[in-house]
Structures are given as structure tokens and as C-alpha cells.
């Protein structure tokens, strides 16, 4: 046994000496890979449209704002897409977070017939691939509710489809916060509604914020449902509008790049501000999902 020792020690020291440089090299390489496409997009969106296939450079030269001017002024619908995207994402976020919290609280704390069955069904429905419901959603929007090609229709359908995960997340959260405060308020004679709005919602702020960020990201970036639900260009959101751009204005790709910045920049800014909640939310749902 003693003869094996030196080898082990040698192995260890070699690994210990090499591992940090290797790790740093890997991390830096992937960081460059992750950031570069965005940076190049920004750089080339500030260069003339004739320079779109110039050798890659890290700074726009010659510099021009022409692409942004064209995108914002030459295409009548572009400002509408921007507005629609904001309205859709804001409304979808608020509705999903509020109603998910409401239902999640009921599932976590109240007793009512059918609670277990309903909760399992809602959980189970998260497994249903979105594409299965695509044809019926289109059908309902056109034939039943006449909400096809309307922004509020899109808001309702997107929010409804995203409830299951929201309810799951909020229920998990409410189950793990202590009951003391609620019980104190309950003894003081508070109703369920007072309890929920005055005591529970303020406590739930981190979870609400995490869900809000996921919801904003999901609706802001949504493509498939919007593609099914929208028809007139003036009702498009940015992702759908940009997709149309990409096929129609292939020859002036600098404009397409400039347009795409309007879709990526807001969400990147939000990501930087609320980074902690993104990371915690992913870790939380990721691990609890197991």
C-alpha cells in the first residue's frame, strides 16, 4: 500500500497546479463565445448597410445611425410592434403573477373539496407539449371567442397557458413560509382576503418577483403562440415582426440587426437589474422540479 502513495501525491499536485488555468481558460473561452454574437450585432448595426459582410471588427467604423433611423421611421409598423410587445408582456406578467399567487395561496393553505385532484391535474398539465394545443387554440380564437388577431386575445391565451407553472411555483413558495404571521392575523379576525393582500403578498415579494421576471421574459420573447394568433402586421409583437423582417428585408440585413436590438436590449437590461432573481429562480425551480 505504501508504494502507491507517491503516485497519488504526484497526481494530485499536478492536477492542482493545472486545474485553475484550465478552468479559467474554459470559462473565458465560453464567455467570449457567449458575448461575441451580441457584440458583433451591435457593432454592425451601427455600420452602413453596405458594410454588413465586412471583416468582423470590435468597434463600428464607419459609424452611422442610419439603420436605426430607417427602422424607426421607414417602417410604419415597427413602433406599433414595440408598443404591442410592451403591452403584451406587461399585461401577461401582471395577470399571470397575480392570479397564480391567488390560486397558489388557496392550494397551499385552504381546504376545499377537489384540492388534491385539481392541483395534480394542473401539475400534470405542465407535461403537455404546447404544440398539442396549437390547433384548438387557433380554432377557439377564430370560431368561439373571436379573439383571433387581437392583442388582448393573445394576452388571455398566453396567460392561461402559463398558469400551471405559476401556480406550481407559488404553491411551493407559500407552503414553505411559516404560518405564524397569518395565524396571528387570523385570530385578530382578518378575512382570507385581508390576510392575502396585507400579510401574504408582502411576504411573497421575492417569489412574485422571480415569477414576474420569468413571465416577462417568456411573453416578451414568445414566438410560436404569437405566430398562430396574429395575422395583421399592425398587431404583431416584435419577435413576430422581426421574423417577417428577416425574410422580407434580407437584402438590407443591417436594418434587421438594428431592429433586433430593440427586442434584445430591454430584456438584457431587465436581466442585469434583476439578475439575482433570475439565477435564484432557475436554481429553485430547477432543483425543486426534481
Amino acid at each position, binding site marked *: 500500500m505504501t508504494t502507491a502513495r507517491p503516485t497519488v501525491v504526484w497526481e494530485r499536485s499536478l492536477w492542482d497546479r493545472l486545474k485553475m488555468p484550465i478552468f479559467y481558460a474554459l470559462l473565458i473561452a465560453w464567455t467570449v463565445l457567449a458575448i461575441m454574437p*451580441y457584440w458583433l450585432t451591435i457593432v454592425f448595426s451601427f455600420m452602413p448597410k453596405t458594410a454588413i459582410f465586412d471583416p468582423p471588427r470590435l468597434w463600428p467604423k464607419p459609424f452611422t445611425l442610419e439603420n436605426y433611423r430607417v427602422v424607426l421611421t421607414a417602417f410604419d409598423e415597427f413602433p406599433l410592434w414595440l408598443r404591442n410587445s410592451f403591452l403584451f408582456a406587461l399585461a401577461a406578467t401582471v395577470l399571470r403573477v397575480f392570479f397564480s399567487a391567488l390560486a397558489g395561496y388557496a392550494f397551499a393553505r385552504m381546504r376545499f373539496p377537489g384540492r388534491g385532484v385539481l392541483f395534480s391535474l394542473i401539475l400534470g398539465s405542465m407535461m403537455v407539449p404546447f404544440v*398539442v394545443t396549437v390547433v384548438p387554440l387557433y380554432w377557439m380564437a377564430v370560431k368561439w371567442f373571436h379573439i383571433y388577431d387581437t392583442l388582448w386575445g393573445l394576452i388571455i391565451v398566453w396567460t392561461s397557458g402559463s398558469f400551471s407553472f405559476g401556480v406550481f411555483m407559488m404553491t411551493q413558495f407559500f407552503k414553505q413560509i411559516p404560518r405564524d404571521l397569518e395565524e396571528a392575523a387570523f385570530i385578530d379576525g382578518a378575512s382570507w382576503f385581508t390576510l392575502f393582500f396585507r400579510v401574504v403578498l408582502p411576504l411573497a415579494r421575492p417569489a412574485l418577483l422571480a415569477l414576474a421576471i420569468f413571465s416577462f421574459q417568456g411573453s416578451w420573447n414568445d414566438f410560436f403562440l404569437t405566430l398562430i394568433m396574429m395575422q395583421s402586421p399592425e398587431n404583431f409583437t416584435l419577435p413576430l415582426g422581426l421574423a417577417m423582417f428577416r425574410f422580407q428585408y434580407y437584402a438590407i440585413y443591417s436594418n434587421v440587426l438594428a431592429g433586433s436590438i430593440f427586442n434584445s436590449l430591454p430584456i438584457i437590461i431587465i436581466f442585469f437589474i434583476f439578475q439575482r432573481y433570475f439565477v435564484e429562480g432557475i436554481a429553485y425551480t430547477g432543483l425543486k422540479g426534481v
Partner: protein
Amino acid sequence: MTYTWRRKLADWLTAYVFILPVLLGWGIFVVVALVMSLYFSFTSFNLLKPPQWIGPVNYARVLQHPDFFRYAVPNTLKYSAVVVPAQTVLSLIFAFALDQKIRARDFFRTAFYLPSVTSSVVIGIIFVWLFSPKGVINQLLGLDVNWLYNVKTALPTIMMVNIWSTTGTMMLIFLAGLQDIPSELYEAAAIDGASRPQMFRYITIPLLRPVIFFVVTLGIIGTFQVFDQIYIMTKGGPLKATTTIVYLIYFWAFGDVTPDMGRASAAAFILAVAIFVVTMVQRRFLEREEV
């Protein structure tokens, strides 16, 4: 405390008021939609003619359709078989690296997650440009490949883009899993004279198994449903080289000159069953581990 039936009934009602909005939205646009989809899959219809019951014919038509078994299924499986292992291994390595005493860890974490934040449309737009014949990638590599319009390279290109965009998310999940492993375990192993690779093999990997399963399942479910990138980058071409199952369903229902929504619904149900089976297999594995 007198808990009368009156009080009980009031509590039930309150609870139902709390869950009503969710119940309505979810009930209509998820549950009813799902049931309708099942019904549609046994009918022949498009928007112009009402659904007509034809029995399980659509399922047979889907399974015998060359676009399905010759292109969509193999493409989706290939896509999944490359993307899932690649993103799992890469993200595990990066998470492990970030779990060390790394300087500027927050910076790296942010940079890694960035591709997961932006929309698939924007990512598609950027990479269509980068991978174009005169684009940045060809310039850097000194090549002259038409990546997205070549039958051989189109699907692998979209695979690369997807690996690029999802590795960050998976990395965050792994990192949280790694940080959940109690450090006492490593300390005890170190006292017993275990080497670093041994610790990785006998502590990290076994304790991370549920998380690995989760990431792999998430990856399979995600890759089975790939659509956005396909639509934006290639629209299923060239010559159906990037036609995946979900893209084909979309095409049958909305893109084709003669839409066939019944057939599309049947194909969607076949996919749903495949995804259900994958999820169940993963559950079984995990349950067996826990016992």
C-alpha cells in the same frame, strides 16, 4: 372555536374564488384545448370545412407519411442526440469550474446566461447573418460554406446554435446542485486521503445524479419540441433537411397549401406520448434511486 358548517361553506367558497381565474383560463385553454386536440386527431378538417369523424386514419397517415418518418423523426432524434449530451456535458464542466474559487464568478455567470435571456427570434436573426456565405464564421475559418442552405450542414448549424443558447441555463441548474452538496463530505474524504478526481467520481457525480437526470429530461423535452429556431433560420429546408416534428406539425396545420389540421393533431399527440414516456422513465429512475 366553533367551526360550523356555515363557516366551512364560506371557506370553500372563498377558496374557489381564489382559484377561479386560474381554473377558467387553464380549464379552457389547456384542458379543453387538449381534449379538442384529441378529438380533432380523429377527424378530417381544416378551417373551411367542419371536423368530420374518420377514426384513427390520421394516425396511420402520419406514421406512413414520408415527411414524418423519413425527415421529421430522424431529424428530431439526431438533433436531440447531439444537443442533449453536448449541452449537458458542457454545462456540467462549466458549473464545476465555476464552483471552484474563481475570481469574477458573478461576471462569468452573467455572461453564460446571456444567450438564454434573448428571444429565439433574435438569436436566429444573429446566427443567420453570422453563418451566411460571406459571414463572420466563414471569414474567421477561411471557409466558403453555405451553412444553412446546405443539406449536410444546415441541421448541425442549428444544433450548434441551440447548444450555444441553452448551455447557460443548464449550467445554472448544475451550479445550484453543486452548491447543495455539503462540504463536510469533501472534508471527510480529504481526511481519508481521497484525491480530487476520486472525490469527483465518488461524491460529486453520485450526489448530482438527480440533477443530471433532470437536466437530461429537460433537454430531451426541449429538443423534441424545437420549432422557433427552425422557423427563423431555415423554415425546415433545404430539402426538408431541418424539418423537425413540431415544424412539420406547424406546416401541416398552417403552412401547407392544403392544410390538414386533423393529421397535424394526430402527429402532435404522437409527440406528446413520446414526451410523456420520456418523463415517466426519468421519474422511475429517480424513484428507484431514492428507495
